[in-house]
Structure formats: structure tokens, C-alpha cells
């Protein structure tokens, strides 16, 4: 499979998201000029017409769309209606706290999932681990955050209640975001480990005299890792979605707050910018996952990727 095709896939997702977002957000009832000026502004019709012309809102929709795509290609996401600065600056200025939060959460989630998969040896441990998994998967992320906040910040005083600086203020939010994700990864990982032990390569390895631990570490994890990895790509997306809620719970700076304010305030360029940036992130993650997948599972390097997709879909 050529890398050109894969890169084309990434561009297709981004273009699709940008176009769908553009069409959907143009359908919003109401005049963008009202959003820019605020509801109570008293402005004459000629001023409104001037604003419309300045922003290119008087052009036909197709012209607006094409000039939007053109600016997008140059990395320009437009101007915020409400914040008097460019969308790139609005998003760029708030991206760091969100990236820090989600990266630490991903790390926590992987460590917790690995620990759970290794601990769940024997029937009793397996039952306990799977019950804990079910509980954390079923709990709303923001509620986990509220409970952690109530216990560790208000009752025990171990962590700051609300602050956006320092590592200590990052621990509880990241843990909140990590727990449900860890539960899902751990479920898939344990299932994969069980499957791996039934595979022919496991029997072969055991017959070769490979120890049980060696089998798990060298072969089973690789087998199970391939399954968990596809999922991890999707879960990074969930982490970014969950970050919106977690940032609200812990009153943290970040893209979540930007998104919520833009949605409530109908700041269309900002909403559109977030959609496009999210699409780029998710498409790239899926690409990386797809490539890593082949490194982990040697069998996929020979199989036609189309067949692989079908085999996967039938198996699921």
C-alpha cells in the first residue's frame, strides 16, 4: 500500500470534516453580525452592511467556501467573531494545557491497563479486575472527577482544588480522564492475551521450551498489543472529547473551555477551527496506529490491506 494513498486518506478526512462543518454551520439560523456585535448593540443598517462586506459575508456561499478552503491550505483558520483575534491564535494559545492533560492521561491509562492485565492472573483476581473495569467504564468521566476532587482535594487536601499550573494540579484531572480509558484498554488487552495463548505460535513457543513469562512478554503481548493499539487510536479521540468535561470539572484552562464558549456564543469560525484541528489530529493518529500495527504483527505485512479490513470486520 503506497504511502501516497494513506496521506490521501488523511487529507480526505480533513477536507470532509472541513466541508461538512462549513455546510452545517452555514445552516445556523441567525445573523453572524448579531453574534459579533452582541444582542443589545444598536447599529445602523449601513454599518451592518460594512461589517458584512469586511468579513466577506456578502459573497455567494460557493465563493465563501472556496476562499475558506484556500485560506485553510495556507494554515489560516479565519478570525473569531467574538475574541478579536485569529482562530489559530485562540486555539494555539489554549492547546498546551489540553495536550499536557491528554498525554499524561494516556500514559496513566496505558500503565493502569498493563498493570490490570498482569495482575489478573487466576480466577478470583480476574473477577475483581473485570468488576473494576465495568465500574470505571460505566461511570461518567466528569463524575469520577467530582468524586476524586471531593475525596483527595476537599477531604484529604492532597491536591490543589483548582489550579492550572504545576504537576500536582495535573494529577487528578489526568487520572479522571485515564480511568475509563484504562478500563477499556485493559478489557481488550486481557481478551487478546487469552486469545494469544490459544494460538499456534504459543503452542510452538511452549514446545520450544520458552518459559510462561517469556511467552507472555515476547509473544502474547505483541499479539494482544496489536488489538489494543487500534483501539488506543480511537481512545485518544475519546480522551480529547473527555478533556472538554474534565477541564470544566477542574476549572482548567484549555481547548475544552474554548469549544464550550464558542458553541454557546455561536462563534462559528472558532467552532469550525476546532473541527478542522480535531480532524487533522484524529486522521494522523489513525495513520500512525495503522503503520505501527504492521510493525507489531508480521502477518499483516503480506496480507492485502483490503482483505485485512474484511477479515477484521467479519471477526468483529
Amino acid at each position, binding site marked *: 500500500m503506497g504511502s501516497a494513498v494513506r496521506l490521501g486518506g488523511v487529507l*480526505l*478526512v480533513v477536507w470532509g470534516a472541513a466541508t461538512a462543518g462549513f455546510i452545517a454551520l452555514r445552516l445556523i439560523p441567525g445573523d453572524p453580525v448579531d453574534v459579533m456585535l452582541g444582542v443589545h448593540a444598536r447599529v445602523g443598517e449601513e454599518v451592518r452592511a460594512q461589517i458584512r462586506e469586511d468579513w466577506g459575508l456578502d459573497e455567494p456561499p460557493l465563493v465563501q467556501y472556496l476562499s475558506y478552503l484556500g485560506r485553510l491550505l495556507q494554515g489560516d483558520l479565519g478570525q473569531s467573531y467574538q475574541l478579536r483575534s485569529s482562530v489559530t491564535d485562540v486555539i494555539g494559545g489554549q492547546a498546551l494545557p489540553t495536550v499536557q492533560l491528554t498525554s499524561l492521561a494516556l500514559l496513566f491509562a496505558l500503565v493502569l491497563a498493563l498493570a490490570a492485565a498482569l495482575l489478573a492472573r487466576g480466577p478470583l483476581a480476574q473477577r475483581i479486575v473485570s468488576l473494576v473495569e465495568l465500574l470505571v467504564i460505566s461511570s461518567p468521566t466528569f463524575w469520577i472527577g467530582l468524586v476524586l*476532587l*471531593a475525596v483527595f482535594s476537599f477531604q484529604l487536601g492532597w491536591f490543589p482544588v483548582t489550579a492550572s499550573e504545576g504537576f500536582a494540579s495535573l494529577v487528578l484531572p489526568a487520572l479522571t480522564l485515564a480511568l475509563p480509558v484504562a478500563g477499556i484498554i485493559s478489557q481488550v488487552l486481557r481478551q487478546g492475551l487469552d486469545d494469544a495463548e490459544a494460538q499456534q505460535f504459543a503452542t510452538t513457543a511452549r514446545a520450544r521450551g520458552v518459559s510462561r513469562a517469556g511467552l507472555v512478554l515476547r509473544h502474547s503481548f505483541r499479539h494482544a498489543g496489536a488489538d489494543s493499539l487500534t483501539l488506543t487510536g480511537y481512545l485518544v479521540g475519546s480522551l480529547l472529547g473527555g478533556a472538554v468535561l474534565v477541564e470544566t470539572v477542574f476549572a482548567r484552562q484549555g481547548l475544552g473551555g474554548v469549544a464550550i464558549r464558542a458553541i454557546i456564543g455561536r462563534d462559528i469560525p472558532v467552532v469550525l477551527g476546532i*473541527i478542522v484541528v480535531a480532524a487533522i489530529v484524529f486522521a494522523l493518529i*489513525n495513520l500512525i496506529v495503522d503503520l505501527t500495527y504492521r510493525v507489531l504483527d508480521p502477518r499483516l505485512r503480506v496480507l492485502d490491506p483490503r482483505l485485512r479490513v474484511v477479515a477484521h470486520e467479519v471477526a468483529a
Partner: protein
Amino acid sequence: MSKEIDAGVVAARPSSGRRVPPAGVLAAALMLALLVLAALFPWLVTAASPLQTDATAALQGPSAAHPFGTDQSGRDVFARVIYGARYSLAVGLGATALALGAGLIIGITAGLAPRFLDGALSRTIDVLMAFPEFLLALVVIAVIGTGEVSIVFAVALAAIPAYARVARIQTMVVSRAGYVRAARSLGVHPFAVVARHIIPNTLGPLRVMATIGVGTAIVSAAGLSFLGLGPQPPTPEWGVILSEGRNFLATAWWIAVFPGLAITAAVVALSTLGRYLRLRSAGRES
């Protein structure tokens, strides 16, 4: 391989051997029954009102009179949680039903359509699946505005791609099965084939997905209203109560803890039931 799939697809009737479900599944069913009772007849479960304020009884901890304590206005949190069941259940069931119906139509269309239409629909589904459901729901809210009804549509639209994808694959598998080809060559009308064979056999796996999906929808809806995008206070909706409780975590943890427990209990019950259904249908197919 195709033989196995045929066997699973043909056996659409429950197996005759009746076994008693495990205790966990019975507990889940009991929990759901309680939830439905609370949603339909909340006054049978609690005598207290979810909206009646009482300034003299504000921020009291759990007691015999107020099992879940009282909130900042002295309202009974237990009554608010019980009355909240109807919002969550309505959103969960309504959004899932909408998503299931739309996903079924889109998936079957894609599965039977000529290549170019299938390609277009599948790529659209792929693009949408690249986004997490919660972000999709947020985008839908941005387009259609905030409010209770918006939340149902947002949660439903966000869930459609997953159902459509499974319905498409299942349709492709079923439409290649021997008995469907036989029905076609016997001259059965294509719509009759869809109605009699494809829809029933596609609903099997989708039914399991939807059971768990109701839980996911309840969590997403609570999240959206927690952010203030849905019903507004003092509506006794679980996400709204949680959002109010956030401001009183230091002094009154019970306001935020109990509605969350209710959500978790509902979702655990639905997933347990969904897993049981999946195990049972897997048992039939092997």
C-alpha cells in the same frame, strides 16, 4: 467460514434450552425495573417533591428524612435523583431508537447499493467515525442550538455512524447467504427480501449494541447537560444536579455523588444485560 456465518444467521430463534440467568444479570434486570418505575411513577418511590425548597433545611447530610441529603436550597436530593430518571431514560431510549433506525436505513442502503453509492456512504461514515461521539454531539449542539430536545438529536446523530457501519457489514454478509440468493432467484421482491431476511438478521447484533448504547447515550446526555447545554436548573436532571453539586463539593459532597451513582448503576445494569445478550447469541452461533 461462510458456513459458520450462515448457521448463525439462520438460527434467529431463541434456543429452547432455558437456563436461569446468572445473579448479576438478575440484579441488572431488577435495577432497570426500578429505573423504569422511577421514570414512570416517581411519586410511588418518594413522597418528597424534587422542586420544593426549604431554606431551613439547606445542605443537610444524608439522614432518615433525606436519604441523599438536601441541596443548597433545601430540596431533597433523593427526590431529585428519582424524578431525574425520566429525563435520562427518555433521552437514552429516544436517542438510541433514532440512531438505530437511521443507522439501519443507511447501513442497509450502503450494503445493497451500487459500488459508488456504497463508497460515498462508507467514506462519510469513516470520516464521522474518526471523531469521538461526544465531540460529534458537541458539534451538533453548535449547529442546532442548546436545549433538551437538541440533546436527544445530538446524542442520536453522534451514534448513527457506529450502527450504520455494523448494519452495512451485516447486510453484505446476509445478502450473500445461500437462502437470500435462493429467495432472489425464486423471484421474491427485493423489498420483501430486505424486510423478511435482511432487517431481522441485521437487528441481532444491533440489538446488543443498542442495549449498551442506551447506557452510553445516558452518559453523553448527562455530560452535555453538565456543561449547561441542555435543561437548565432547577430541572431535576442528573447532569444538572451534578453541575450544581460541583459548587458545593467542599461542604456537601452528597449533592454530586448520588446522581452520579444513579448514572453508573443504570449504565452498569445496561452493559451487564447487553453482555448477557451477546453471550447468549454467541452461544447460539457456535
